[in-house]
């Protein structure tokens, strides 16, 4: 029950008078307010700052420190106030929670200090209201990340008992962990550099034979270059194989970007070895050599900055894609316009629209090579418009990429937020549980027979004893719900019990009450239960038409449950369920309550009620008068 409406409980109880003429049963006794004191101000002294509030305000949340009797531990007899040696600034928001029912997170507050305060006062952080929850979660995540970073820095202590494979993998991933790893790291880096330089130098024309044109060094010193290449590829192959061996998940390693780069870097060499020196394939072979330049990407293992750049480009791929698309549109438009504008002029270079693409791109990026220029006036006009708009359009990607660099920090957290979506669901579930706590609290107290003593014929001593475990507000609320039960002559039950109870009534529609017979029913099972099901469905069928819309809803609800039974089943499952309820009937005096206790109670229930005390079977309870319902049940509830 929310805090604010606690003040309206007297109203709700007064309105219950409206049920009295409808009810056919006597109402339970109202819980009396034994120490009926006037609402008093209590003083909370938090490190010298005095807060005052009504006692009832704090009683709204009985499962927190201030709402329960736990605060008595902090009561100072001499000054007649409650003294807490905590931070008064944080206390402000905590007290406001009691007053307004909403918990806010102040931005200036440190997140771990706030968490400690909440834990001290017994308030779960999940009930921070939506206006502040986002901020709270963000700060909390930042904090945990920072702590994790600190932890990672301390992770250099090698955990003992690592297998050779794990050691190797760790050496590959964190080169600074051991000297061998560092050596390996530098050696591979060196060879990558050598390989790249070799590829570059290969094409430089060096020295010319007197009667021949310049030939590139690659063709002059073929053997030397071939040896270099072989050496580099050997090193790379060995490195790749070692990584493959050491990887904890080989399949995942093979799919990773770095390993693909590795493979692409060394593959041309092997393909070249395999291929013979045919004329027609040598052209293809030459293009394969281009892929050797991918070796330069192997540097990204060595450079953090390169990885971030790659990651940035990947992350703003959608923006860049859109930009490319709009650029393409602009290029096509201007190219078409220029083509048709220049069509008239003779010896125009704008031979076709694709040919005009080149002009458009060069003009829009303000390169202006000058190899294609418009000659007609219309062409010049459109050409100038093209270059002006190009300036605008090309300037667009710069802020995108810049903002993405800053966004890259939050990109990690978006993945965390997606993880937090699951946490959000968990949070909503927790809130729902704590809110539903009021409904389950009532069911829970029913199970424990707390409400038994509230019968008009019940004894008063038990009443006093049990009263201590629930607050007055709760007991009044439960009394209200109990009155509603009496008015309608139906009880609130748990969802599961509802299903079981439904089946039980299906079996009990036969006027047999003895346990032996019902167990017999359970065994012979299916034919009887099927017949009773048909009975119920027939009953419902006649009633659906004779009532107006709302009642149809009720009976529709009912039919829905009724139809669920045939859905689930095969004979065997029906047998199973009927056996279960058959065994329920066989228990002592057909009490349903004993079965309820055997079901584990959900952990979020009100911890105040004692969950372990089974209700004593009460054969002395007066049998309830039937009001024409078909079910005759012997029960203590």
């Amino acid at each position: 029950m929310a805090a604010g409406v606690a003040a309206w409980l007297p109203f709700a109880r007064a309105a219950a008078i409206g049920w009295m003429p409808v009810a056919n049963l006597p109402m339970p006794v109202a819980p009396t307010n034994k120490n009926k004191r006037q609402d008093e101000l209590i003083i909370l002294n938090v490190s010298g700052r005095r807060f005052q509030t009504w006692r009832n305000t704090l009683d709204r949340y009985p499962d927190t420190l201030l709402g329960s009797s736990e605060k008595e531990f902090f009561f100072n007899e001499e000054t007649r106030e409650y003294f807490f040696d905590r931070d008064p600034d944080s206390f402000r928001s905590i007290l406001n929670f009691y007053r307004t029912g909403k918990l806010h997170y102040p931005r200036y507050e440190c997140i771990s200090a706030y968490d400690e305060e909440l834990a001290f006062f017994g308030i779960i952080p999940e009930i921070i209201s939506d206006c502040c929850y986002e901020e709270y979660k963000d700060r909390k995540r930042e904090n945990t990340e920072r702590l994790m970073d600190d932890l990672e820095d301390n992770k250099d202590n090698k955990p003992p008992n690592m297998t050779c494979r794990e050691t190797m993998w760790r050496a590959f991933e964190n080169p600074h962990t051991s000297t061998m790893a560092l050596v390996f790291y530098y050696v591979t880096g060196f060879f990558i550099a050598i390989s790249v330089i070799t590829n570059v130098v290969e094409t430089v024309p060096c020295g010319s034979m007197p009667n021949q044109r310049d030939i590139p060094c690659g063709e002059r010193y073929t053997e030397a270059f071939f040896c270099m290449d072989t050496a580099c590829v050997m090193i790379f192959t060995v490195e790749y194989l070692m990584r493959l061996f050491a990887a904890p998940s080989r399949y995942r390693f093979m799919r990773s970007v770095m390993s693909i780069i590795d493979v692409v870097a060394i593959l041309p060499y092997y393909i070249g070895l395999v291929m013979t020196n045919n004329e027609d394939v040598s052209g293809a072979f030459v293009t394969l050599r281009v892929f050797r330049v991918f070796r330069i990407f192997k540097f990204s293992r060595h450079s953090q900055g390169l990885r971030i750049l790659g990651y940035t480009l990947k992350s703003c791929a959608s923006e860049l894609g859109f930009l490319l698309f709009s650029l393409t549109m602009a290029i096509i438009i201007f190219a078409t316009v220029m083509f048709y504008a220049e069509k008239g002029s003779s010896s125009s270079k704008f031979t076709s629209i694709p040919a005009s693409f080149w002009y458009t791109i060069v003009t829009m990026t303000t390169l202006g090579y000058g190899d294609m220029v418009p000659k007609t006036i219309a062409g010049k006009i459109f050409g100038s418009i093209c270059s002006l708009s190009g300036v605008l359009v090309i300037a667009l990607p710069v802020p995108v990429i810049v903002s993405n660099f800053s966004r890259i920090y939050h990109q990690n957290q978006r993945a965390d937020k997606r993880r937090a979506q699951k946490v959000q669901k968990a949070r909503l579930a927790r809130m729902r549980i704590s809110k539903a706590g009021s409904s389950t609290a009532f069911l829970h107290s029913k199970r424990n027979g707390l409400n038994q003593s509230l019968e008009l014929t019940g004894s008063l001593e038990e009443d006093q004893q049990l009263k201590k475990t629930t607050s007055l507000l709760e007991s009044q609320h439960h009394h209200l719900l109990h009155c509603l039960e009496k008015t309608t002559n139906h009880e609130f039950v748990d969802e599961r019990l509802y299903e079981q109870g439904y089946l039980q009534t299906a079996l009990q529609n036969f006027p047999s009450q003895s346990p032996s017979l019902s167990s017999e029913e359970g065994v012979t099972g299916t034919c009887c239960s099927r017949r009773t099901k048909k009975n119920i469905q027939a009953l419902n069928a006649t009633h659906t038409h004779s009532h107006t819309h709302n009642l149809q809803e009720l009976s529709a609800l009912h039919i829905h449950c009724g139809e669920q039974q045939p859905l689930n089943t095969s004979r065997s499952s029906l047998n199973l369920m009927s056996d279960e309820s058959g065994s329920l009937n066989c228990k002592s005096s057909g009490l349903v309550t004993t079965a309820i206790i055997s079901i584990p109670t959900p952990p979020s229930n009100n911890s105040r009620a004692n969950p372990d005390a089974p209700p004593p079977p009460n054969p002395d309870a007066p049998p309830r008068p039937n009001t024409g319902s078909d079910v005759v049940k012997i029960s203590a509830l």
Partner: protein
Amino acid sequence: MGAVVGTLTMQTRQRPSRARDKVDDELEMTMVSHRPEGLEQLEAQTNFTKQELQVLYRGFKNECPSGVVNEETFKHIYAQFFPHGDASTYAHYLFNAFDTGNNGSIKFEDFVMGLSTLLRGTVRDKLEWTFHLYDINRDGFINREEMTEIVRAIYDMMGKYTYPALKGDVAKQHVDTFFEKMDKNKDGVVTLEEFVIACQEDENMMRSMQLFENVM
């Protein structure tokens, strides 16, 4: 040229202020808060003491800072007490019963008057109040349809998971029992006198009515 630009900008500057006035007016209309009559007057009109009125007003104002409850808020508040089922229909009838002025909102005075009748009134007053609650169309008679509506609203508050399970005709049975008891001359409607007499004859009901005396 500058003059043209100047006049254009002056035009635009006036327009937002006019729009702002309209928005302010709307805001004012919604923010009108109602203040109740003085404490002494209310004390004279109802059967509550000053302390009780203070406690009631504090709770009232907490939930409705504007000083009036509209039907939505009312339903929301009432629903908090009955988490199992749907209390909105019954809350609707309650709202109409409290809203004696029929203006769609309950002021604190209405609220306190109603509560005074329910908690501190005579038995006759309570029964009259209950009769007015049941008499949805205020024609002075309770007929079967009205009673069925009320009973159904009460059953709605139970929700779906009940033991024994709610069958389709359960409201009808209840209404039949009610009319058996109340409708003395069997004319199909219950008048106020029939209602009061029948209730006073029922021991259980009289005892139940006294049950909520110590609510405050």
